[in-house]
């Protein structure tokens, strides 16, 4: 076994272990943290495949942004675990059947029959000056430029739709308008009055 395969098996073991822990640990926050660990170790495996751009993007997008928001939400939820666990034994047989069907389906679609080594060949080791970032950019903006742009447009539509759905005018809330705050002049708030000074009343008058 070469050093590379030792490193691979270490990362793979952590990945499988943490992915299993995501669905088995009781505490939801721990589950999210295990998911973060799973993303991180799969990024490490991608780096071993010389796909450093994808690996770093995985860490940046999923670990750095998506999972932070996930954690944010899960921490604020007050989840009572007891009702969630009710009927676990009752539905277990159905669950096992569904899981088995899904497993067989996935094995049929992404198994070795379609994605095996004999279809794609063993990985090629590139020289030190090989840049995964550059290769990916070249393909993405030439061969796949239309799918890429269409995907971007669909995402933009989704963003606008999400904002449009959640945005509503609520006149009763007292928003602060920073533009109006900045434009305030002294004259709007303070009125200067000219008046003669008062005389001090003399005693006994």
């Amino acid at each position, binding site marked *: 076994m070469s050093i590379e395969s030792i490193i691979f098996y270490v990362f793979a073991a952590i990945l499988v272990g943490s992915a299993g822990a995501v669905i088995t640990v009781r505490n939801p926050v721990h589950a999210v943290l295990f998911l973060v660990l799973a993303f991180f170790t799969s990024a490490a495996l991608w780096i071993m495949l010389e796909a*450093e751009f994808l690996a770093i993007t995985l*860490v940046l997008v999923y670990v*750095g942004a998506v999972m*932070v928001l996930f954690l*944010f939400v899960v*921490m604020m939820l007050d989840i009572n675990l007891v009702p969630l666990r009710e009927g676990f034994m009752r539905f277990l047989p159905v669950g096992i059947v569904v899981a088995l069907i899904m497993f067989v389906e996935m094995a049929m679609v992404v198994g070795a029959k379609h994605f095996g080594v004999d279809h794609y060949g063993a990985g090629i080791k590139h020289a030190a000056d090989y840049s995964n*970032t550059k290769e990916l950019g070249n393909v993405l903006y030439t061969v796949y430029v239309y799918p890429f742009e269409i995907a971007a447009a669909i995402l933009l539509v989704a963003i606008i739709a999400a904002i449009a759905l959640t945005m509503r005018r609520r006149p009763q809330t007292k928003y602060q308008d920073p533009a109006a705050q900045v434009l305030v002049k002294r004259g709007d708030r303070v009125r200067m009055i000219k008046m003669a000074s008062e005389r001090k009343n003399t005693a006994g008058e």
Partner: protein
Amino acid sequence: MIETLETSLEMIPEVILILIKIVLIVVPIMLSVAYLTLAERKVIGYIQVRIGPNRVGPRGLLQPIADGLKLLLKEIIVPTNANRFLFVIAPILALAPALAAWAVVPFSDGMVLADIDAGILYILALTSMSVYGIIISGWASNSKYAFLGALRSAAQVVSYEIAMGFALVGVLLAAGSMNLSQVVLAQQGSILHWFWLPLLPLFLVYFISGVAETNRAPFDVAEGESEIVAGFHVEYSGMTFALFFLAEYANMILVAILAALMFCGGWLSPFQGIPLLEPLFAWVPGLVWVLAKTSFFLFLFLWFRATFPRYRYDQIMRLGWKVFIPITIVWLLVVGAAVLANLGPWFD
């Protein structure tokens, strides 16, 4: 099996060399962090017409050592009902990305631990990970104030990361590379060739976002002492607290050196292209220029802290989302057009 052993034996000198390089980077960073705390207290002291620490050692120069010893000897208190494992691991999660990001930082031409092509992306990914230390510490402490601080900090870091990322997209557009050494070399010419000029709005957005990302004043609502005591690290003491402190200052130095590398020419001499001064200062090694520029940006951090009042939380969010992100998007279009038009003297 024997072949593997032989190849692994051949790799040992290489590994030792890398380890020595890591030590050569990490030890100066730790010393800089220690003396940055002293500099902060001294600078703010003088700005407020005080002297600052001056009792330990000559002119207070041994103060950081004394502070370190004190923190090392203090008891670590774990609050009741705190999640012990996460409570202890949180400071480590805060410090590790702050140090790991230094792997791709070039200190001079060729003086870099890992000269990778996706350098800027790597730094962005690792700085975005440092938020986990803060969130986990706030949650694991089982304390209201710590939790509020963690939520504030998480929202703030995630928001400013977007503006920062867009600013860095501008840099890689202008330099045509994500490799930090290439970014510096693309700025060659003179002080006017540096990217601070063509990317001025992005430079300002980057640096202000950097201040916000490190949770420093005036964006330090995550630990606003007048509202939530000390925020996410309120329950930490001794060395666990010291690790958060180290992480914050290591991140500050990282933001400062990145500003120097990406916008202010890195190790290039500021006298480049000036007839008389350029040969006069040609003997100065590039490392000195990098460190001088970094120190200037660090001074700005301290200056901000002594000058500005703390931002209100909704104003922080407004600044990040409604001011910075539109500015960066508009300027990305400008930079893209300038690169396309080969606008001189920067992009020809």
